[in-house]
């Protein structure tokens, strides 16, 4: 996994509440058996004027000129500014995969849906929670200044914008994994003995939980 330490980037808006993962990456693209290739179809139904299909050449499709991510001023954006309950709905990890591949390294919003929030950390993408009022002020600054940039310092847990520092909360373990780009399976397997002991005890106490399913 890509590590995340400090990042400065252009900010782009996704200015609506309850952005669901169907909107982030529509279902027809979920038929892929790969982890990559979703970037060109991020926000497909908003980004293009026609209907996207897997395998199509996206470079020849009509672009929606009214969708902010298509504006020249947000080109190369790596920080997405969003509203409450971002990433609600389906558990599809294709949503953070698509954001990451598009070039987004961090999302800033007042709140996230739990599964999406969790999925981001598995993919080197940092979802930052800031107070709704601060998020609104960042939206205003972003709309006012072309090429508006924000700096994120994960070690310090701060967002630096407009010369001010805004602190954000993050779980220690997630921070540790993200700073180092750690894959958490290998970390969990370091505790394999504990898992085996627990399992053995359960097999004795509650054997019905281990009844094998049969073909």
């Amino acid at each position, binding site marked *: 996994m890509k590590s995340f330490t400090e990042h400065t980037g252009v900010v782009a808006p996704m200015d609506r509440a309850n952005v669901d993962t169907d909107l982030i990456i529509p279902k027809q693209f979920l038929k892929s058996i790969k982890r990559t290739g979703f970037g060109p179809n991020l926000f497909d139904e908003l980004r293009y004027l026609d209907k996207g299909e897997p*395998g199509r050449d996206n470079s020849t499709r009509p672009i929606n000129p009214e969708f902010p991510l298509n504006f020249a001023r947000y080109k190369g954006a790596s920080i997405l500014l969003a509203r409450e309950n971002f990433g609600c709905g389906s558990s599809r990890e294709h949503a953070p995969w698509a954001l990451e591949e598009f070039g987004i390294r961090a999302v800033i919003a007042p709140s996230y849906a739990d*599964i999406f929030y969790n999925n981001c950390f598995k993919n080197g993408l940092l979802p930052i929670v800031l107070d709704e009022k601060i998020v609104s002020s960042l939206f205003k600054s972003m709309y006012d200044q072309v090429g508006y940039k924000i700096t994120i310092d994960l070690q310090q847990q701060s967002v630096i914008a407009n010369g001010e520092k805004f602190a954000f909360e993050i779980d220690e373990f997630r921070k540790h994994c993200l700073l180092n780009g750690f894959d958490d399976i290998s970390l969990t397997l370091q505790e394999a003995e504990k898992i085996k002991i627990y399992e053995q005890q359960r097999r004795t106490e509650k*054997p019905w939980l281990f009844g094998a399913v049969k073909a």
Partner: protein
Amino acid sequence: MSARTLYDKLWDDHVVAQRDDGSSLLYIDRHIVHEVTSPQAFEGLRLAGRKPWRADSVIATPDHNVPTTAKERASGVEGIEDPISKIQVKTLDDNCDELGIVEFKINDPRQGIVHVVGPETGGCLPGMTIVCGDSHTSTNGALGALSFGIGTSEVEHVLATQCIIAKKMKNMLVKVDGTLGEGVTAKDVVLAIIGEIGTAGGTGYAIEFGGEVFRAMSMEGRLTVCNMAIEAGARAGMVAVDDITIEYVNGRSFAPKGEQWHKAVDNWRKLQSDADAVFDRIVEIDGSSIKPQVSWGTSPEMVLPIDGFVPDPNTEKDQVKAGGIRRALDYMGLAAGQAITDIKVDRVFIGSCTNSRIEDIRAAAQIVKGRKKAANVKEAIVVPGSGAVKKQAEEEGLHKIFIAADLEWREPGCSMCLAMNADKLGDGEHCASTSNRNFEGRQGYGGRTHLVSPAMAAAAAIAGHFVDVREF
């Protein structure tokens, strides 16, 4: 020990290790797998040279991509016309065969939607921790289990370690007392709850559904309610174990038998919140006041009783919310103030992990019996949740009632709930749907979804527009 909630008990029982930062290593008893969110996890496992920790804890079945017409299903996986869908279903078959995972393949009589198959086979049991790479895994909580959806990286993590790294959620009790009126179903109850607390109302919580209404509700109704806990933002929903739970589980293929059964039941009886357990949040709703519900917008919280009127964004003071209403009205092609009963329906979908069990099929059949689909409804499909549901319905002759009413009787799968197969809405079409999400484009590009109960969907198929099933 201090008083604990049902969620506290399920959680405590599965903690393998507690970490200093508040996260825990939680043991997973059952892992359900489908074709869409698993291929990258199996690939990751293979690339790292890892094997499943406990292959016999996994049950797999393809559901999202499978075609639902008898014709396309006739020759199994090879008959899937969409080449990309075919590869995905085949990949699941190959992965399961290679790793010795039990899979109910496309034309196995036990195949079906993961969240229907889990409970009905007894693969999902009270007291278990259950995960699946699918947000609607909350469904199984109805059994008195801790069940939640995970992402693909976590699917790989559970395959490799039988555990998940999780932080304990907060406790919420949604208490619905009173008696439901005639024609008011589990679906209406959960839609009313979401309308009340919003789609982010349950974020960060595990919800226990308690109160007289859930105690009186059938197991299938409880599965419907827990299924949509995620639409209220809660990863997990659950209902305490009682006689209804025990009776439901008894005799299912993978349920314990003989002496094991009695031991298990004694244990399961304890799966309820202590009388003095403390919840972080309690929401109380009067069940007697709930009417049949219809969603009008593009989020499940945009829902109204059948006698309601589409809202006016100009009366909403919160600008983000007003913008949301405006965008939804525009997408849905509705006008502020329009009566819900004036919304015409182009297609009807009865199915999905929310409402495709035998009681749902019976409720829909009862409404359409002896009637005909309205001429303006282009298509109305009934998609049973599993091979077992289909068989049961056919034994009861329900399929004949649908066919006589000009509704289509299909093969089991997720179908038009998310339109990954050929079942989808056309641009601008309105659908009375028993599924769980009315997001933009969910049921097809430009499609307009209205979430309703099976009886309400069936009534809309006959009337051609939304009607109050209580007066039908």
